[in-house]
């Protein structure tokens, strides 16, 4: 058993205050940033396309969804500016491959007209993923990117909320589909996090933090939708194991 004494030895305030920011100009940082930034840009593009697509399944909400989609394009431009500011070229080929499995699942659900699955992938998983990553990135970002990301993260909660509200209103008819969609897609999120863990670490973003923060945002959404604590814990477990 560790004791209070050993626990007290860690330099808590030093690391927690994150006063030692990474060297944004180092080749190592820029290399990692080229992939992380590309993922963010691609993620915002995917989000735009996905909201427009969901609009085709929910014609009465197409206007609202178009608004959300436009916000994502604005975010994309902001993050493109962040790369330019650091003199980095985003590795878009990497990002496209990174999103391919999730993109594939979304397209399959879209073709089948499965609104709940589409919303779970875009409005819950991708948005929760983005929210957690942005929150963890903000304290270790360069000043330019920090400002932009702070603005973006507020919008992403709006998007999470949109999906949440629709699914809440329709939970009775889509519960099983959501559980299946969770089983099919949450492990993909886990693999995506594993895949970027090394690059994220260079940016001083811990994988452990990313997973926990992602799950907090995701679980909050599931709670709001109306799942019980135990159902949620069971659903979330597939992000932690496997």
């Amino acid at each position, binding site marked *: 058993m560790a*004791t209070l004494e*050993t626990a007290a030895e860690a330099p808590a305030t030093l690391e*927690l205050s994150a006063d030692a920011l990474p060297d944004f100009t180092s080749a190592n940082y820029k290399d990692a940033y080229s992939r992380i930034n590309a993922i963010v840009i691609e993620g915002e593009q995917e989000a735009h396309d996905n909201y427009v697509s969901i609009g085709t399944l929910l014609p009465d909400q197409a206007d609202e969804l178009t608004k959300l989609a436009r916000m994502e394009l604005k975010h994309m431009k902001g993050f493109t500016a962040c790369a330019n500011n650091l003199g980095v070229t985003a590795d878009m080929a990497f990002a496209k491959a990174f999103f391919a499995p999730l993109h594939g699942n979304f397209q399959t659900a879209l073709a089948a007209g499965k609104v709940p699955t589409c919303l779970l992938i875009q409005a819950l998983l991708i948005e929760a993923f983005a929210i957690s990553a942005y929150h963890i990135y903000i304290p270790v970002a360069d000043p330019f990117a920090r400002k932009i990301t702070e603005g973006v*993260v507020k919008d992403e909660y709006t998007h999470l909320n949109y999906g949440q509200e629709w699914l809440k209103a329709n939970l009775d008819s889509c519960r099983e589909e959501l559980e299946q969609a969770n089983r099919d897609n949450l492990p993909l999120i886990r693999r995506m996090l594993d895949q970027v863990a090394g690059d994220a670490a260079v940016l001083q973003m811990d994988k452990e933090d990313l997973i926990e923060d992602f799950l907090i945002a995701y679980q909050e959404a599931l709670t709001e939708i109306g799942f019980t604590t*135990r159902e949620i814990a069971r659903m979330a477990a597939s992000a*932690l194991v*496997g």
Partner: protein
Amino acid sequence: MFGLIGHSSSFEQAQQKAMDLGLEEMAGADLMAWCSAPPQLLETFQVTSQTGKTIQGTYIDSCFVPEMLSRFKTATRKVQNAMELAQKNGINVTALGGFTSIIFENYDLSKFQQIRNTTLQWERFTTGNTHTAWVICQQVERNAPKLGIDLTTAKVAVVGATGDIGSAVCRWLSQRTQVGELLLVARQQQRLQDLQQSLGGGRILSLEEALPEADVVVWVASLPQTLSIDHDSLRKPCLMIDGGYPKNLDAKVAGDGVHVLKGGIVEFWQDIGWQMMEVAEMENPRRHLFACFAEAMLLEFEGIHTNFSWGRNNISLANMELIGGASLRHGFQAIGLAADQLTSALIGRQLAAA
């Protein structure tokens, strides 16, 4: 609504609990996976006071386990995230139980009020230390005489005297009781001297010096695994109140005139319909609970929605009296020595007299 933030006492126990809850994946997951597990609001329940008043409570498992103590970022994140969850659920007052309040204080988490998009409102949280300190003092005052220890001539050692609970216990014992002498034990000399001055008495000793002199020992510091106590050198009878966390003193010294009492544990007047105290390995998990948790209940019963116990060395005697009065009124009682402990103490005294 009041809240309790707690954790399993070991990783193995956390896995077992996950299994019991039907979370097979988590039960089989390794410690690394648990390090990323978010806090869970595990149960809500009702508690009815002896006065008839009923309140709602909720238990949040921080998903922290003691094996994570060496990973300070993980440990701090667990505490902060559990607090955020409590606040987001609109809980009026939440007690930080087990290691969570120790982590909060040791890592000075009051500097980090912003958790993602939530600003933690400290007034919604309590360490529960005021009630714990009061309960420990009650345990000293009530149980020492049962072992034939006359407090007016007894030497009472407080190990961890400069801590939040320790200093409150010292203040209470020196000002509200007639103890013979206080023996002050702690690591930091300056703080010890400050304490001695504020008390206007007490003798500063090392642990090795204090133990053989003490009739009563109040432990309110976590014990290092390596700590060994020479049983033969202890006074007999000796009352030891194990007020630290985790409670691992019993196995080290109990027996043959040395009586160990779990410190800071209270018994409620009736069963509570919860499962959570089973994970804390309480003797009677439906009625026994940590005094710090009981403080959250008391504050809710009394409608005192402030961070009643907060920061270091802020516990006043007036607040101890206030929470102590509420404790008795609502049906809590500090646990005392068990019947078999008292019987063995009596036999010991008779043998000594013969």
